[in-house]
């Protein structure tokens, strides 16, 4: 390990993506990261490589190729079947030290956030967590800043030749954005929030062209200090309003047909990975349980997306949800107070609008 010198950027080439698999299935973040990594690799004029660890997983390579990988290093061993910190860190650090990529991206899943920091510490380099934007080209970074910040971009001095990775991430619950660089050490590492990067179209030609490179695994017992006793998959179905990222809430506006209204809300919530909430009026009417009530006498919520269906927006309700990051309101009354706090309002009958919304969402 001590022979690994990483202070000379010119010795490091290529963009790498850690391709996470669970139970032999690739994670959606793999495709998102490869799609994003492709752009970086193109801007740098280098190869995009995936690193795939597991047991008998080389069959997954074409999928990775289809999203942009030029080459995939495959490390196979029964000890790599399920993720363990020790085994994965050892194998990844061995290959990184050998092949020396300049950029190494990891999905910020619960596994990626366990693996990334451990690898970065061993590789003696920096790691930027939960990035939402990655740019190497300075001109592109300037464009990015112009569209997302209030900074005087043109009034600043720029080194247009700089090809260092500019990793932008939110801090303090999104109240502040910071762009982080790692100038002295290689690889430049970052974990990337799942769902943030856009997935490219699957390209069969690229899938066919993708090179598989089996990389030998050298693991001994002393490398494996943690044992996985079992892996359990479980579906979540409890309503957790407080922790929910997306809430679809119904109000008295569903009174025309409460059951249908609720079904619609549930379908929309399912489509967005969210949960169903309600205003006091809907709870009082007995359509929804009291634990789902949002508002002053219910729960105070701050989801990233709050969709209010047929909720007029009494103060008592607004007090519980107005700090949501984005609020969408659908109401047939154009002067309903809910529109005062909404980022986007649609004036219309929810029984007509919501089925359209679900349709658009599910056919995306």
């Amino acid at each position, binding site marked *: 390990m001590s022979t690994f010198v990483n202070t000379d950027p010119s010795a490091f080439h290529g963009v790498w993506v850690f391709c996470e698999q669970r139970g032999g299935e690739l994670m959606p973040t793999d495709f998102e990261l490869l799609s994003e990594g492709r752009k970086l690799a193109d801007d740098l004029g280098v190869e995009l490589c995936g690193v795939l660890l597991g047991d008998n997983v080389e069959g997954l390579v074409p999928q990775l190729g289809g999203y942009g990988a030029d080459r995939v290093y495959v490390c196979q061993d029964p000890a790599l079947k399920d993720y363990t910190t020790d085994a994965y860190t050892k194998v990844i650090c061995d290959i990184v030290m050998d092949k020396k990529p300049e950029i190494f991206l990891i999905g910020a899943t619960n596994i990626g956030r366990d693996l990334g920091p451990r690898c970065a510490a061993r590789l003696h380099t920096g790691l930027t967590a939960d990035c939402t934007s990655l740019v190497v080209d300075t001109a592109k970074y300037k464009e990015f800043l112009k569209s997302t910040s209030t900074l005087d971009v043109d009034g600043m001095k720029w080194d247009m030749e700089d090809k260092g990775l500019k990793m932008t991430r939110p801090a303090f619950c999104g109240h502040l954005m910071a762009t982080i660089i790692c100038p002295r050490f290689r690889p430049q590492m970052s974990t990337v929030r799942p769902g943030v990067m856009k997935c490219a179209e699957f390209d069969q030609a690229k899938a066919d062209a993708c090179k598989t490179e089996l990389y030998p695994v050298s693991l001994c017992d002393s490398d494996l200090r943690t044992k996985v006793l079992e892996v359990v998959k479980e579906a979540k179905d409890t309503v957790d309003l407080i922790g929910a990222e997306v809430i679809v809430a119904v109000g008295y506006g569903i009174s025309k047909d409460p059951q249908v209204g609720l079904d619609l809300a549930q379908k929309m919530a399912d489509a967005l990975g969210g949960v169903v909430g309600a205003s006091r009026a809907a709870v009082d009417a007995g359509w929804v349980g009291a634990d789902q009530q949002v508002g*002053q*006498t219910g729960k105070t919520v701050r989801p990233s997306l709050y969709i209010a269906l047929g909720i007029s927006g009494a*103060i*008592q309700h607004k*007090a519980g949800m107005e700090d949501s990051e984005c609020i969408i309101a659908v109401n047939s009354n154009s002067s309903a107070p809910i529109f005062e706090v909404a980022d986007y309002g649609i004036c219309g009958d929810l029984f007509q609008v919501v089925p359209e919304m679900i349709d658009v969402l599910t056919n995306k």
Partner: protein
Amino acid sequence: MILSEKHQMMRKLYRQFAQTEFTDELLDRLEETGEFDWDIHKLMAKYGFMGVKIPVEYGGQGGDSLAYALMIEEFARVSPVLSIYANTSNSLGAGPLLFCGTEEQKRKYVEPVAKGEKILVFALTEPGAGTDAGGTLTTAVADGDYFVLNGRKTFISGAPMADYAVVYAKTDPTQRGSRGISMFIVDMKLPGVSCGKPEAKMGIKGYPTSDLILENVRVHKSDLLGPLHKGFATAMKTLDGGRLGMAAQAVGIAQGCLDEAIKYAKERKQFGKPIASFQGISFMIADMATEIEAARQLVYSTAVRKDAGDPEASKLCAMSKLFAGEMCNRVAYKAVQIHGGYGYIKEYKVERFYRDARITTIYEGTSQVQQMVISGNLLK
């Protein structure tokens, strides 16, 4: 008064505990059923709140009167009734025992009370004797190693759940007025002890209050508390501490009312703007906050002076209770007024605060009794 870092930490602890554990669901249940909630009692006991002011050697937390007052205030700010849960053991319950109990009595009774394993209540008031202890009709007659108690105590807070009661009884009928009264620790399981039906109260629901009936109850002489025939002086000393606690409760309730009033005044809109922007409302809020702060400072400084052995402590405790109790009712009135019609319906917290506030000028000595104590001190 500037609180020490320790007292600030305590206040933070009490506030966090009350805000987290005194859930709306729990408060609604207490209100609806009127029944004692053993779960929250046990949780409060686990954190030592029952013995905040009881010395560490008797299983308590070793805090001072200010530590106790801060607790009652912060608990009452969220739930007046739950502040009572942690009150009795620290004031009227363990108070008389700590004042004049023997070492054996302290070990036997104070420790489990401090830890919340047992509930001890204070039984002074009778149908014909509240403020006027001279009218005490409960009697205790010596019979060998025992005293035989007979009588009826009334409005005994916590009696239905109690394990023990400190009972005041006339032991020397030849002495008049408050003299000739002794204190006994009565095990509620003794034959002849019973409780009346819990009263249906205006507020403070969830902490049952009932009569305590004594019919030929044989209490061993080892459970005589303090000197024979001289129990009333101890009762008076205990009442000082209790009054301080109830003054703190009044401050807490008033603060809870103010919190709600401010929140509502900022949210509620009339004529196109929040009602907080109207002077009729904002000046009420200014007055409420000022009165609360005055009462709070009186309570805190009284707590410190009481612990320092200030000879004026008794008067100051009465002043605290008088001022804070009356202030609390003025503030609760305004809080409901600011809420308008919503303040009159149960969904809004001020409705409950308003009813709970009413007791603060009544129990542990009415405002008029406090005035008697204060003026008696000034005009002696």
